[in-house]
């Protein structure tokens, strides 16, 4: 190995003053497989976008550092340049045409052509497709992967695994392809399909094609990669040969921040199961819950963590009746009806949605409406009866309630009549909390309570949750992608992976333990 195929030197990138990549450098040799790992938001996607010359990078001010391909610096201004230079990319989502066959998809826009007389008059675009040659090319590409797919099958009729292979075959059909970037290629595959895919990746490497393999399944990364690069907060924290590296090591590098867990007392008043979730499934797009079971004790703050897309958000949304769900949910030994938002609210549950602007707020209405509306609809509060004939909104009562919460939660606003859309993210989040508290719930679901809000507001939101838990004994189930946040206020934390609970740990468990559960390596863990 004389010269590396690709070397990234001191790559850095800022988005609106927000540094997402800093001084990232590593090299890839010919025929080498690099495993690129990192949490959500660690900068993997941005790095690949830079490598691929995606226009979004140039639009947001370009990047720092240099990329060298076979020793010469390159600057790609569009993905086409990258393709011409021999870099292929397979995205997480399929970009195939369902109504076309595998052959047609693999050779799309690079079809083998036969000239005819029309070409002399109108030019090359009048050529006829050479189907036989295309078939052979597709066949060859598929064989290089070491799998068996009939090139004439329609993509729409293929199992997902075959679609993934078709997509890779399309990339390696390019003659000059030298480097292949695979972004979470196994995310949609079953285990046996993933095995085959890993085998074909090794196969490609033997043929001299380098591969950047991005996956959160650390078991796959450690088994297939020659070298592992770990990104955390936009920096390369570890670059190491994959030999003798365990999953636990990688998990530790990935999440391992030195977090001080505030050691406030966390004891339960009573040790009694309050909410029991059994075999819950939820059909929420992008956050599918397959089968989840866990118990929450009375007066507990129960955390649910996990990577994006693994189904942690589906749990509260499903229980609250916002997405189709099935299974069994018991509150205080009484079964809750699923798929019925009203009944669940009436049973004493409340929900602070992760989609603040979409679900959490009436953006065009005033704060008192936002805070009092749900309580009015569910508990018939804030209504004054007129001669026992009909009842009207109690504007005074609503104003009073809103004022109370504006004070209690330090909501910064001009008054109760301000429109919700005019508040900052953090204050909007407080309004959402106020709305839930106004219901005086027995159990509160909070989903991503600190997403997209500043540090000050974050502290207030978390403190408020802790206070309500302590002072009113409110049982809280908090879903968050931020592990430290969960560890800071929860009693126990469940980690969700691929729609199932990978394990439940006490907040004091070591950070590596959590990382290990997130990595998809603890399938048999089950509910602790």
């Amino acid at each position, binding site marked *: 190995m004389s010269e590396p195929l690709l070397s990234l030197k001191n790559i850095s990138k800022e988005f609106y003053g927000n540094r997402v990549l800093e001084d990232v450098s590593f090299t890839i040799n010919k025929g080498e497989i690099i495993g690129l790992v990192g949490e959500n938001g660690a900068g993997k996607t941005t790095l690949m976008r830079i490598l691929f010359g995606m226009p979004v990078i140039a639009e947001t001010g370009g990047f720092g550092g240099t990329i060298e391909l076979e020793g010469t610096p390159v600057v790609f201004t569009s993905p086409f340049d990258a393709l011409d230079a021999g870099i292929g990319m397979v995205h997480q989502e399929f970009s195939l045409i369902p109504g076309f066959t595998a052959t047609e998809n693999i050779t799309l826009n690079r079809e083998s052509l036969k000239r005819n007389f029309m070409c002399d008059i109108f030019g090359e675009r009048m050529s006829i497709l050479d189907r036989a040659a295309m078939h052979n090319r597709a066949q060859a590409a598929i064989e290089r992967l070491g799998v068996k797919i009939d090139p004439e099958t329609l993509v729409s009729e293929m199992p997902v695994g075959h679609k993934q292979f078709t997509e890779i075959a399309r990339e390696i059909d390019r003659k000059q392809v030298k480097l292949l970037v695979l972004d979470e290629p196994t995310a949609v595959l079953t285990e046996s399909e993933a095995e085959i895919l890993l085998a074909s990746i090794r196969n490609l490497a033997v043929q001299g094609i380098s591969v950047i393999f991005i996956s959160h399944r650390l078991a796959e990364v450690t088994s297939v990669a020659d070298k592992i690069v770990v990104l955390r907060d936009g920096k390369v924290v570890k670059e190491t040969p994959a030999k003798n590296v365990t999953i636990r090591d990688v998990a530790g590098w990935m999440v391992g921040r030195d977090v001080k867990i505030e050691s406030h007392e966390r004891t339960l008043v009573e040790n009694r199961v309050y909410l029991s979730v059994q075999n819950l499934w939820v059909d929420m797009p992008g956050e599918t819950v397959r089968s989840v079971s866990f118990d929450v004790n009375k007066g507990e703050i129960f955390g649910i963590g996990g990577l994006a897309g693994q189904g942690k958000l589906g749990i509260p949304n499903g229980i609250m009746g916002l997405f189709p769900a099935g299974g069994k949910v018991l509150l205080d030994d009484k079964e809750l009806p699923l798929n019925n938002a009203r009944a669940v609210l009436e049973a004493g549950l409340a929900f602070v949605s992760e989609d603040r602007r979409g*679900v959490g707020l*009436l953006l*065009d209405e005033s704060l008192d409406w936002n805070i009092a509306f749900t309580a009015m609809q569910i508990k018939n509060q804030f209504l004054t009866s007129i001669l026992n004939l009909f009842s009207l909104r109690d504007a005074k009562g609503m104003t009073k309630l809103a004022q109370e919460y504006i004070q209690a939660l330090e909501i910064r606003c001009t008054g109760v009549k301000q429109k919700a859309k005019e508040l900052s993210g953090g204050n909007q989040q407080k309004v959402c909390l106020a709305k839930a508290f106004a219901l005086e719930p027995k159990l509160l679901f909070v989903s991503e309570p600190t997403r997209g809000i500043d540090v000050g507001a974050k502290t207030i939101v978390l403190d408020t949750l802790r206070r309500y838990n302590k002072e009113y004994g409110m049982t809280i189930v908090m879903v968050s992608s931020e592990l430290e946040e969960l560890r800071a206020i929860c009693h126990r934390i469940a980690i969700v992976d691929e729609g199932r609970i990978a394990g439940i740990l006490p907040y004091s468990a070591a950070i590596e333990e959590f990382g290990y559960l997130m990595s998809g390596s603890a399938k048999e863990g089950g509910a602790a």
Partner: protein
Amino acid sequence: MKWLKDFITDFGWPRIIIALFLMALFIAAPFVGVKLGPSFTDVFNRFGQNAVMVLALVPMVQAGCGLNFGLPVGIVAGLLGALITMQIGLTGFTGFVVSIVFTVFFGSLFGWFYAALLNRVKGEEMTISMYIGFSIVMLFSILWLVLPFTKPTLVMGYAGEGLRRSISLENYWRHVLNDNALTIQIGSVIFPTGLILFVALCAFFMFIFMRTKTGTAMTAVGSNPDYARASGVSINKMRTSATIISTIFGGIGILVYQQSFGFVQVYDAPLFMAFPAISALLIGGASVNKASIVNVIIGTLLFQGMLTMTPSVINSMLQTDMSEVIRIIVSNGMIIYALTRKTKVAK
């Protein structure tokens, strides 16, 4: 000057311009030989005649169904109510009340079906409702020929079957609201107290309804359906209620219109009835997703005032008949204007 600026942004330029224009017309009227007294009488009458139909648009706007271009659904219910009452042979105030009862019944029925359809086309309500309105008018054009009305005053003279194009209410309940014991005359201005009271009653009912739990839920559905759903409110149910109420009020609206106008007009007459109502609401400062009773009252006054004054004053000035042209330009221009500024609402 700040209060003036605030007032202008709050009240909105279009309303100010139209109000000033209207004022200018009233000032100019005596100079071109148009008498002011009858003009005021006209404006009051036309206001009362149309206000209920404008009011009918409010619940659907608030529930997020947009402007009810399908107002003819309600109008047809109203026609049916009036005609059945006439067939039975009830007259005077009793006849008017009974026709309202029939209208409420048919309005609920038609409104329910109309709502079921609209719930399937969320986001496209305004386009679809326009075609539903056109279709139901045409469907009833057939039915008016076929339905077994027999009263000689209703059916066509020669054939003895099929309704006349316009049926006089002279011997039934013409001017039952406009011209009764409550009517006040000050000089040459006749104030139709009964009519205005009836409109006020309808407006009050709507005002109360929008403040009940259901009305509040309706507004929330219009403001953010997902929020409402997460608060345990059934979106479809609220939209259905809003559509039914809108349809019923549309029906009552046409009854009020007819008693003032003096004729029941069938066949294609209801075809374009929705447009002036919608323009009036928009001139009043409503938007596609927010409307209030105040918008209805101001809008109807300005729009009907313009329609009354412009033709008489301008025609006297120019010595030509421009009334229809001006009416069309104003009403359709206003709809276009409002649809381009979907979100901004004037108070």
